[in-house]
């Protein structure tokens, strides 16, 4: 939505340098300024072995990572944005399939950005979860992990 201020960076390299993103198996499919994150299905992502279904926390983490990647791309900042708050709506159970997500920056301020993200599996029109969150852009000793 907002224009890129810096030349597009290698987002897959950015992601590969985050151990937790590697642990979840997250990669980036980048076409120009369109970024789709991909979380390849793996047995270790299962939270309910009976359904089976992906762990809700994994879906939340994937959406958070998608927001971070979108912010890294659009701000061009080397610093990883820190989450302040995140609200996740669970819409459908996550089946044992690859999961995709996209994020949109709703508002980018000087210190804080508001981001919306949505995840889906085999049908883009049937999202499995959506999240919106606030992220701290500048490195500061204040909130977030």
């Amino acid at each position, binding site marked *: 939505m907002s224009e890129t201020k810096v030349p597009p960076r290698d987002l897959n390299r950015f992601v590969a340098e985050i151990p*937790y993103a590697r642990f979840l198996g997250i990669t980036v499919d980048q076409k120009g300024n369109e970024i789709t994150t991909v979380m390849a299905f793996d047995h270790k992502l299962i939270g309910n072995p009976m*359904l089976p279904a992906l*762990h809700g926390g994994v879906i939340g983490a994937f959406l*958070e990572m998608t927001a971070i990647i979108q912010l890294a791309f659009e701000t061009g900042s080397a610093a990883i944005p820190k*989450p302040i708050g995140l*609200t*996740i709506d*669970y819409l459908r159970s996550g089946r044992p399939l690859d999961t995709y997500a996209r994020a949109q920056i709703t508002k980018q301020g000087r210190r804080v950005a508001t981001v919306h993200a949505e995840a889906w599996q085999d049908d883009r029109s049937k999202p499995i979860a959506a999240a919106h969150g606030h992220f701290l852009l500048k490195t500061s000793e204040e909130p977030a*992990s």
Partner: protein
Amino acid sequence: MAAEFRMTPETMLAMKDMLMQHVPHMKALGVEIVDAATAQAWLRVPYDEKLIGNIETGVIHGGVITTLLDNSCGMAVQLAMNEPTSIATLDLRIDYMKPATPGLALTAHAHCYKTTRNIAFVRGTAYHTDAEDPIAACVGTFMLGANRTVPSSVAAAKAALEATAKE
């Protein structure tokens, strides 16, 4: 399926070592059950380099906290039920107060403080050692009787029991 099986704090604690082995993602994270009470659960995840979200600081990713809180909340709901009920997270809101300290395990405590016919209301905190000094806090709602399957904690308990019976 496991209609006769009810998850009580006693059951959960008695089975705590095997319970998490049957939930793949909990096993992958190394999560353990620390304590359980009526409508309350305490889970802990050890610090691990694979969970780092920022290699410059060594701080674990917020997603790990989300996962730990989500699971604690689900267990608290289960421990608030009088009979096994399938549950599904409707929403979860997390506030991150401060970064987790690298090298330290993280504990989450969740309390299901209200249930209605359809919905369970839960809040939780994540901290290192002092619950009064939270790293993150959450509120969530869960749909009760969301599907026909047994809840994952009950399913895991049942699988664990069956595995024990076979030995």
